[in-house]
């Protein structure tokens, strides 16, 4: 509350100068792309137009309220029509609107220019995480909320980037045109990073696109903007914009990591190893619905701890994890998790929270099934 007062005071001293626009946290960010700057300018232009019209209209109104008070013996005039005046106040707004429409159209056309992208990233919304695939680069990963649940409950002090931090940020190069393709696995989400002025719905079964060319390296944060269910507030977006060489190096490193992971498929895994890996996967992917202790939240999300159907039928269990269940929030993890992760999470859920089935599912088994 005190910070608010300070900011309010700060804000008020700035009113009247266009600097008020730059007071951070009160206004639309200028952003770090040419388009976000243009959009910001459009926003400020229409804002000031509204302010001017408002001052005139409310000025006349409050002047009348003050000047023509009945209590001060004002006598009402008797006029109720003036076509000239009416035409003028119809024509002026029309002209202002045309004046606004022209730059708005120009900016919109730039947003809709899909040409000559240097990098394509497929962004998939899923309840409740984002998945990024660098098309043609063999790099793909999920990006989950990293804020611990304890902070949300208030058991721990909240960090600076509370709810705006993820386990794996999207990494993008600056100065390159990056084309985003958007789609969804389940419901409609919306991918939004204010500093890029990019907000696009992700529609299941359909694909939409937008693009960005970032001018400055930095860390940019955003959130899902379309109500997508229980954890709508908990699927943030973090983008690391880095220099081009750094990006290329990062990409190469990720490709290497993926190759290493693929090597792990063929070897025999111990139960402990799989449990450890599986706990990590479960925590970031499954726990938001089925809960950390596997108790679920029925009827939408069944409990896994003590789930008889799951424990009795291993093949069915694998099938559900790999293919998902249509018409429910259970997605297909066929492509979003690799065989090692799939094997680990299946093993984990069959042995955690007292399920203790002792089943060990090997990555090689899963890989073969997916061939």
């Amino acid at each position, binding site marked *: 509350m005190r910070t608010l007062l300070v900011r309010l005071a700060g804000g008020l001293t700035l009113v009247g100068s266009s600097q008020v626009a730059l007071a951070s946290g009160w206004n639309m960010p200028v952003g770090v792309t040419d388009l976000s700057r243009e959009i910001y300018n459009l926003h400020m232009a229409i804002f000031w137009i509204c302010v001017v019209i408002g001052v005139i209209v409310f000025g006349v109104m409050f002047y009348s309220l003050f000047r023509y008070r009945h209590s001060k013996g004002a006598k009402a005039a008797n006029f109720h029509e003036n076509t000239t005046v009416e035409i003028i106040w119809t024509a002026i707004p029309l002209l202002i609107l045309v004046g606004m429409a022209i730059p708005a159209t120009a900016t919109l056309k730039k947003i809709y220019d899909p040409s000559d992208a240097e990098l394509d990233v497929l962004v998939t919304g899923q309840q409740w995480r984002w998945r990024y695939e660098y098309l043609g680069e063999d790099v793909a990963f999920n990006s989950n909320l990293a804020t611990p649940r304890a902070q949300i409950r208030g058991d721990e002090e909240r960090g600076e980037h509370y709810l705006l931090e993820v386990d794996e940020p999207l990494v993008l190069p600056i100065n390159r045109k990056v084309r985003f393709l958007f789609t969804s696995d389940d419901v409609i989400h919306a991918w939004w990073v204010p500093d890029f002025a990019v907000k696009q719905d992700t529609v299941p079964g359909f694909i939409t696109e937008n693009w960005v060319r970032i001018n400055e390296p930095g860390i940019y944060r955003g959130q899902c903007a379309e109500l997508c269910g229980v954890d709508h507030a908990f699927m943030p977006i973090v983008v690391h914009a880095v220099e081009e060489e750094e990006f290329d190096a990062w990409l190469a490193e990720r490709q290497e990591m993926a190759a290493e992971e693929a090597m792990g498929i063929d070897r025999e895994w111990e139960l402990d190893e799989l449990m450890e890996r599986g706990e990590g996967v479960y925590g970031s992917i499954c726990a938001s619905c089925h809960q950390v202790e596997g108790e679920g939240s029925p009827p939408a999300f069944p409990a896994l701890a003590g789930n008889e159907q799951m424990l009795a039928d291993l093949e069915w269990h694998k099938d559900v994890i790999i293919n998902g269940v249509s018409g429910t929030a259970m997605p297909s993890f066929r492509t979003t998790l690799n065989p090692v992760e799939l094997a680990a999470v299946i093993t984990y859920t069959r042995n955690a929270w007292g399920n203790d089935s002792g089943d060990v599912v090997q990555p090689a088994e899963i890989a073969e099934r*997916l061939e």
Partner: protein
Amino acid sequence: MSQDDNEVRQAGVRRTVWRSVAALVGMFAFAWALVPLYDVFCRVTGINGQVDTTAQALVHDDVDESRMVTVQFITRNGSGLPWRLDVETRQVRLHPGQTSEVNFTFSNQSRSENWARAVPSVTPNTATRHVRKSSCFCFEEQLLQAGERVEMPLVFQLDRDLPPEVTTVTLVYTLYPVEGKTQKLQAGVKLDEGGEA
């Protein structure tokens, strides 16, 4: 007010009510008509990347060699279908007007037969109208036996009127289960088994 006036009023009310009801019915019908209209509108204008699913004649001998366009293919899986959809190449580069053929592989990895359907989407939507397909599996319901693997070709071209700012066209196929048919199928299998026993 005289009795006559009252009757005139009542007649007026009746007329108004009937007209209103007619308008209501009309608007209700209109709402339903919007569904197919929207479909047609989308196919004509390319909104939402809805593509024309009917096979189209390819136009030959009319290749625009002055520019190259990249066509990307993305395959995705909807939930609940034990199938895998692969494409032999992730992208091709071609001239507008040039014909290309790309093979898609559908494999059923389960131990039972299933129905599925591939739903296509194209972006950017200014390109949608300019993608011509002579053979395609879009929206078609397909049946695969347990473990069956089928290759299907997509033969297509981009027509020469493709807007110049379009340098990359992305085609996405999402595979969804056809629940009703699969269920019927499996129920049928059980019945048969029951009959034999």
